[in-house]
């Protein structure tokens, strides 16, 4: 029997795209995800539509996730990572370690009984974020009484579907697959590394990702406990891109910043928005119209701020060099958004070691042949999405589908080659 | 007594006609005022026929008034309001009362006027109307019956040099020429080049027909825009609208008159056409000012 199944590691949008394509082509897929939920970063992105769709593709991600988890040929393994790899193209043995977690996502029906009965406050067991898939409850070990040595058993005892389990150890299993697609995505650049920009020090310095989540949670730009809406906002581009440590453009920041800015202007037209930039990246299908529409109402300043300081409570002074004017300027804002870039995944190095694949100087997975392809130096191991280099959502999807296509093609070939070999014996 | 228009056309003079719009109502004093003012300053007075499909005192009525006051009338006849019976009857009447000039027109559509729900007739079109005049001249009506006394008119018709596209319009003009006309007066002209092209086209086909350039002064940028949108056959170039909008407030009329006079002078000096026809409906009293500014007094 040929082993026709494929393991996709990482369930961000490119991994999900790979898995779906393979499954639709009749190939069984293990979709392995190290986190509790499927979808990766982009699943929590907000819709940035104004009066029309701004083509951010966030909704496409949700569509794909929904389709993938319901697909009969896709098995989702959450909390799982690859620990070992042996074998070769057409016949890989992959050791998967499933981290202990306490709520069985197959059995949790999200009824909420556990949260209700949990004696601590804040609750140690709580629902996942609203858009999470699978929609399975999460036990926060740090808050749980059991971590303090108490013998609390209330949630487990009350769970109507016996989904909660405490005495868990990491589980290991071996999967036999024909090919592997690595789609482990990216890490968001840690804006604390740029200390002078104030992230982590000031509550009104946020990253673009934080802002996405504010919109996802609130539907509007409401900050803090009082839900205040900022009136004067600065976006700072290229935070963690195109600098000393990052010899690349993250490709997504200009567009998400402008789209978020557009959304803010649409919801509250009187809010002032300034974007500080080096080079505006306005290429790409469907973006020209958007840029045309908002380029008048958004203030663009060529020059990236060097420092953000709090002058009064809630007020931030941004020091920047206005390149067009040729002078150093200061301006105050009540919210500064750092358009953080795409960094290679923290665990890429470990994974590269396990799988035997190469990394680029920048820390992304390296590919053979040409820019943007999917083949790694190991036959049968492919990469998809932002773990190979920065990409936007459509780019990640396309790259994911391409990886699936390549995996399918080599599986077909390796099978026929093996048949050929057997024939000659 | 005024010189018959047919005779005027035979001279080499630069011919000037002006339009008189009948009143809405039965009081004709205003019309008489205009007739008195203009009859000696122009070669003929041209009376509109329910112009812009707005119901008024009849063209024929004002023509008779002009005759009474010693002027030379041109009777405008459109095909919009009368079928072939009514038109023939009117022509007989006009002829019997010494109205000897006729301008044959299609007529504006009912939709632009003040009786939008009326049935529009168009039993004939302007080319057929010209043919009809010739038929009746020969002593027969359209049905071929003998007339006890025929008609004789100096026949004019219109053309639109600014029609877009122009070619179908030129074919129509050619048909009118073939049917036989003595003069053609054009719709309002604002681009001299349009007129030149138009005249050249006609001259290639008919050396004798007299061509009168149409002049409609515009007295403000807003009016110009309105006319462009709503008045059939008119297209005022942006250049002139700009010129008007730059005129100081309250000087719109003066500016309009200045532009019109400039146009007339150009037509005359460059011998673009044989004369002009000034249409300043509602402001007939200003026509002498234009004539003065154009050096035609």
């Amino acid at each position, binding site marked *: 029997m040929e082993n026709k199944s494929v393991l996709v590691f990482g369930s961000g949008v490119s991994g999900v795209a790979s898995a779906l394509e393979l499954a639709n082509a009749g190939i069984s897929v293990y979709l392995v995800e190290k986190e509790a939920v499927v979808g990766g970063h982009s699943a929590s992105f907000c819709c940035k539509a104004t009066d029309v769709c701004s083509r951010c*593709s966030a909704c496409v991600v949700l*569509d794909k996730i929904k389709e993938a988890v319901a697909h009969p040929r896709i098995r989702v393994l959450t909390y799982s990572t690859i620990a070992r790899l042996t074998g070769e193209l057409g016949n890989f043995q992959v050791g998967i370690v499933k981290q202990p977690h306490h709520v069985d996502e197959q059995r949790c029906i999200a009824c909420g009984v556990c949260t209700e009965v949990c004696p601590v406050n804040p609750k140690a067991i709580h629902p996942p974020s609203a858009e999470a898939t699978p929609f399975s409850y999460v036990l926060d070990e740090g808050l749980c009484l059991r971590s303090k040595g108490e013998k609390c058993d209330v949630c487990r005892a009350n769970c109507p579907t016996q989904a909660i389990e405490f005495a868990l150890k990491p589980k290991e299993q071996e999967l036999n697959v024909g090919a592997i697609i690595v789609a482990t995505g990216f890490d968001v650049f840690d804006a604390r590394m740029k200390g002078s920009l104030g992230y982590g020090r000031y509550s009104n310095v946020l990253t673009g990702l934080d802002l996405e989540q504010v919109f996802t949670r609130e539907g509007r730009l409401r900050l803090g406990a009082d839900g205040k809406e900022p009136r004067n906002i600065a976006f700072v581009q290229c935070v963690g891109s195109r600098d000393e440590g990052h010899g690349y453009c993250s490709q997504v920041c200009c567009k998400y910043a402008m789209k978020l800015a557009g959304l803010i202007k649409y919801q509250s037209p009187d809010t002032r928005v300034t974007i500080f930039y080096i080079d505006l990246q306005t290429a790409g299908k469907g973006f020209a119209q958007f840029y045309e529409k908002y380029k008048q109402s958004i203030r663009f300043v060529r020059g990236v701020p060097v420092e953000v300081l709090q002058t009064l409570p809630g007020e931030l002074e941004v020091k920047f060099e206005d390149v067009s004017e040729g002078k150093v300027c200061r301006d105050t804002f009540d919210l500064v958004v750092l358009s953080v870039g795409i960094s290679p995944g923290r665990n890429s190095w470990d994974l590269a070691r396990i799988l035997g694949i190469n990394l680029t100087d920048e820390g992304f997975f390296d590919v053979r042949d040409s820019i943007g392809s999917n083949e790694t130096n190991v036959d049968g191991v492919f990469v998809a999405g932002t773990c190979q280099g920065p990409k936007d959502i459509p780019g990640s999807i*396309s790259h994911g589908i391409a990886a699936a296509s390549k995996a399918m093609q080599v599986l077909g070939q390796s099978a026929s080659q093996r048949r050929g070999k057997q024939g000659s014996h | 007594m005024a010189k018959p228009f047919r005779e005027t056309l035979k001279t080499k003079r630069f011919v000037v006609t002006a339009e008189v719009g009948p009143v809405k109502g039965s009081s004709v004093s205003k019309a008489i005022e205009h007739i008195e003012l203009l009859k000696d300053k122009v070669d003929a007075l041209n009376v509109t026929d329910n112009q812009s499909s707005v119901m008024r005192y009849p063209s024929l009525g004002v023509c008779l008034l002009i005759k009474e006051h010693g002027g030379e009338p041109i009777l405008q006849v459109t095909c919009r309001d009368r079928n072939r019976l009514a038109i023939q009857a009117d022509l007989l009447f006009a002829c019997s009362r010494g109205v000897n000039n006729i301008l044959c027109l299609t007529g504006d559509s009912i939709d632009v006027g003040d009786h939008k729900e009326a049935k529009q007739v168009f039993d004939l079109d302007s080319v057929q109307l010209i043919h009809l005049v010739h038929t009746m001249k020969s002593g027969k009506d359209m049905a071929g019956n003998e007339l006890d006394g025929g008609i004789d008119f100096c026949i004019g018709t219109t053309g639109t040099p600014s029609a877009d596209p122009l070619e179908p319009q030129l074919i129509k003009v050619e048909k009118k020429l073939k049917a036989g006309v003595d003069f053609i007066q054009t719709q309002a002209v604002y681009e001299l080049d349009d007129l030149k092209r138009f005249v050249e086209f006609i001259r290639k086909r008919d050396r004798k027909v007299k061509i009168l350039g149409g002049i409609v002064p515009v007295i403000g940028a807003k009016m110009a825009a309105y006319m462009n949108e709503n008045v059939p056959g008119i297209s005022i170039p942006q250049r002139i609208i700009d010129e008007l909008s730059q005129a100081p407030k309250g000087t719109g009329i003066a500016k309009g008159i200045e532009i019109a006079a400039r146009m007339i002078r150009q037509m005359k000096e460059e011998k673009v056409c044989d004369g002009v026809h000034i249409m300043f409906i509602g402001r007939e009293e200003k026509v002498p000012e234009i004539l003065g500014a154009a050096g035609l007094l």
Partner: protein
Amino acid sequence: MDRRIGVFLCNCGGAIKNIDFDIAAGKAAALPGVASVDLSSNLCLEEGREKMLSRIKEEHIEGVVVAACSPEFQEHIFRGVLKEAGLNEHLLAMANIREQCSWAHEGDVTEKAVELMEMAVRRARSLQPIEKKELPVNKEVLVVGGGFSAINVALQLSRIGLRTTLLQEEALLGIGAEESERFCCFDTDSMISAAEIDENIEILTSAQMTAVEGKVGDFRVVIRKGVEEIIRKYGAIVLAIGCQTRLASDFGPELRTGGGAIAGPNIVSQEQFCSMLVNPNLEKEPRTICLMFDFSDENSRFAAVATLNNALAAKKKWGSEIYVFYKNAKVDGQGMERLYREARNCGVVFVKTDASPRIAVENGRVGIEARDTFLGEDISLACDVLVAEELYLPGEGTGTLNLLLNVRRDSRGFLQDENVHLYPVGSERKGILFVGGCRGDSGIGSVLADISSVVMSVHELLSAGRIPVDVEKVRADPQKCVACLTCIRVCPHGAIHLTRTDNSKEVAGISDLACYACGICAAICPAKAIRFQGHRDEEIVTQLEAVGKALNGCHVAFCCERSAYPAADLAGRLRLHYPENLRIIRVPCAGQVDVFHILKAFEKGAAAVLVMGCEEGACHHITGNTRAKERVKYCDMLLKEIRVDGRRVAMFNLSPNAPHKFVGAVNEMIKTAKEPGR
């Protein structure tokens, strides 16, 4: 027809506390047609499903109602149970008593839950089975174009055993392939010869497509080659016609001679510059070279790629003094920043300037003046060669092709609408795909990915040789069809054609293969001849009959299952509350909502009707939401002319991840609408 309906209620582990399940079960049992009512606490788990299965068999249930969580999550699981029980899986109706009832409101919602169940029971009674079938498809693929992407698609398809025809207007394969060679190090020659010897690839050059009929799996294509007319059949069509370049209009006529060629040797196009670079017999190497990009078109990546590559190559080859003028460095592509840095490190001088430089030719040299944004100074220099800014535009045949194939173009004229649901390579018509430069200039990295995406899509469609379909899910009744062609004109997926019935009457034929079951046609058919199983008038009206019975006044929201419906679920999960008297009817697309359905809702007592679909520009069926908007406007007019004051109908656009927008829209509507007399 009296179908035995089994109602399965689930209290979700006992967690749904604001519904009295005993009362609800009792009321459900009393509904007409209901043969059994079962209460479960874990219907979605295996044990729950097994119990459901055995109850269906025991009670000889013929139609199933599940009153539980949202169908968004578990519908497919319950359909599976029906299938296992030997029932047609479409005889299932769900009442969303969790996300859109229990979680969405405070206080007891038993009455609403009962009403939702009644709606579902009524629907289940009128549903009809839909059969599944596999339809055969032609496995050959037509690839239009002969450049890099076209040849690559053909080669990859051949590798998975699919035969292709490469159709190119030019006489030689590979024209346009140099384009990619210029930027990258692909070996295009070997690629072309591989295609030429590949027995799965047929090459038709100097030929063009003149007519296309049919649908996915069965396209009939007329090809003209010289005087010859060839008729061929294909299962799918891939468009890979690339893009074309033109000099930016700033290069005014004084600098150009006829046909867009450049005057003199001083100002050249990128292509001419490339041939200078590879010309071994170049008379004189230019000492000073200027290049420029990003002035006339700020949305192009190809222009940046070409400029940087050529600048670098010239620097390396000739060591010339090189200046690149640009507004924004377009580096958002793979390897672009690295290329940009390399060029800078090699000594290429980059001059950032906000306005297009002024250019003049004098004494055989080209003078350039611009204001350097960084220095804040005007600079002026003269060079031997200026490489003119180029624009990347849709390929020549684009306009003809999109009409021929009935597919849309984007706002810049490239193929493929800007709807994100079509990305990366899809069109609104199944079996017609786009790849490469004809989609827009996206950069070489993504072109490669798109090529593989196309191969995958074609494989999924055709490799099996047959496609499973729902048989006649949407069907025009030939007895009622008056062949008015309305549906053919409105179908966004090109799935409807005139066909002849057995007795040779011409009627609308809806292809099961090409149909996406959006219902846009059914909603517009003036003869009411189109039946959309699951969303027929009967099925909708019968639900409306149950609306608002138990409550004082109600409002109806027709929610697109792609956007508003999941948004409502999310609102429930977030416990965002909205008035209890909202009734949601799930529709496949806002475009499926018929004016008549809206009026019916008012007749049945609704004070407000909301039609909720995807954001404008993001409809899964391209025009469904804009049509819905038009229809709502029309409906509003219909209401105004009968002067039923207070009742309101409105259209809302939202995405599936916009629960706040959903709740905001509902609250706004309900606040302002009132039913007269109440």
